[in-house]
């Protein structure tokens, strides 16, 4: 065991994992986190705490992790390279580990132009692959990037993200190969709507033997309405939503029910794809649907150790 986290135990024991996302609030109030933690306990193996996603200032992911741990659920902290240089990133990794955080997702981060502090100075000292390598070296040998040997290095289970739907498509499997080589233990993908395209990417992943090196958790987003499906199709760079999905949502009598049904179907398909070791549910501002989705997708009860 690298960190001994619940997520690591689930994945390393060969069970199909479930992770889900909790968005920290845009305030100093811990209550929404506590509320979500109580509601979601037992429905996923670990919960991602996003790190100022879309560059909107929110309660920090490390603090959020500590708040949900008090409720007895396990966090995956997201750490982007947008706001901290190598000094800040390594320091926060020490801090997170000292507070009991065991899972860390390494991300480059959304550009600040999308957020609510557009005049910010972006850092980007690292990209996500460099971040993985630095964190991997720290946990393996206690060697800091600057060369210093440290005592009591942070023992973390390291994750990455990958987007099979961004250009150049031909580079996407190679990107995951680099991330695996840099130390990624698991990978949560961008939300999948184009199943054929995802399967083609998975063919490449298996062809390179990467499914044996890194646990792939396929990303899903339950869609609330035809409007949100259309928005993701047309406005979110790096997302591919086929027209059939927009039409299906448009023609549904009850769009929310249809969105849940679609998500459950997607999870069932993903479960059958060789090399997919779990799902990652991103129910953006719709966290209350997670228990139902997990239950209807036949993913309960979650394993305990």
């Amino acid at each position: 065991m690298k960190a001994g986290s619940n997520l690591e135990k689930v994945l390393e024991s060969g069970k199909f994992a479930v992770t889900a996302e909790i968005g920290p609030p845009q305030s100093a109030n811990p209550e929404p986190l506590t509320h979500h933690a109580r509601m979601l306990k037992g429905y996923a193996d670990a919960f991602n705490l996003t790190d100022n996603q879309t560059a909107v200032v929110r309660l920090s992911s490390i603090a959020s992790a500590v708040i949900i741990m008090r409720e007895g659920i396990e966090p995956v902290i997201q750490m982007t390279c947008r706001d901290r240089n190598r000094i800040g990133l390594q320091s926060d990794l020490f801090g997170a580990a000292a507070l009991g955080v065991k899972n860390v997702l390494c991300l480059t981060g959304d550009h600040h132009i999308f957020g609510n502090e557009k005049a910010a100075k972006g850092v980007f000292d690292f990209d996500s692959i460099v971040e993985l390598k630095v964190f991997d070296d720290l946990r393996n040998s206690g060697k800091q990037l600057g060369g210093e040997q440290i005592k009591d290095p942070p023992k973390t289970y390291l994750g990455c993200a990958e987007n099979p739907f961004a250009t150049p498509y031909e580079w996407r499997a190679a990107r995951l190969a680099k991330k695996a080589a840099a130390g990624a233990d698991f990978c949560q993908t961008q939300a999948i709507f184009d199943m054929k395209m995802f399967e083609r990417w998975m063919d490449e992943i298996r062809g390179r033997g990467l499914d044996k090196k890194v646990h792939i958790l396929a990303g899903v987003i339950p869609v609330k309405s035809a409007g949100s499906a259309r928005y993701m199709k047309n406005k979110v760079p790096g997302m591919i939503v086929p027209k059939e999905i927009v039409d299906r949502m448009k023609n549904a009598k009850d769009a929310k029910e249809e969105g849940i049904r679609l998500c459950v179907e997607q999870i069932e398909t993903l479960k059958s794809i060789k090399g997919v070791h779990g799902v990652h549910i991103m129910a953006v501002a719709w966290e209350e649907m997670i228990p139902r989705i997990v239950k209807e997708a036949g993913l309960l009860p979650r394993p305990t150790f």
Partner: protein
Amino acid sequence: MIVAKRKPLGEIVEMLAPYQKITVIGCRSCVAICLAGGEKEVKMLVSALKIKNRKEGRKQQIDGFVVERQCEKEWVKEVEERILDSDVTLSMACSLGAQTIGDMYPKHLTFPGLNTGMFGVPEEQGVWSEKCIGCGNCIIHTTGGICPIARCAKSMLNGPCGGSANGKCEVNLEVDCAWVAIYDRLKLQNRLDLIENFTPAKDWSTSHSGGRRIYVREDAKLSQHQKKGKEAVQ
């Protein structure tokens, strides 16, 4: 070259408002080529300021001219009298030109007429694009001759982020994704194997992050004797 843009007229007017005698000095180098501070732009600005002054009943004496390269002391020295004869100099060069005048005549006021933007190249008439940030450690032999530090919004070192769609950057959909361009170039050069390579953390100490940079070429420096000789000639 250095690419700059003229400041908005209102900002310039406000800057110059308290002064009577104003000298506007352009530069025939980079800022002339990027149509920001050459001879034509100096003339246009001087006329615009005069018209605005007439309309708003302000009395100022405004003269304008250009020097060959405002960032070199020799060229500035030639117009020393005209600089010192004014209350304020408005530099229409890049910030390097403005600071050269300021450093040479520290008691005299020198204000910037341009916003200095980037190291860029003219792509076509009227279009300039950034291609270098002067990081002090060039790596473009490994990236198909395209700099990801300057041309990627996140200065990614190991390939494209997840926001690249149809070959464009998510930060500005008009701008090409640097890593898609790198991929295409490497493919053309039959060097796609390079995309598998890991690029480690960049050493930023050669950039501005390492503090202000002063480059010295000992072999090019003049000896005390040579310096004296040069001064005597001047």
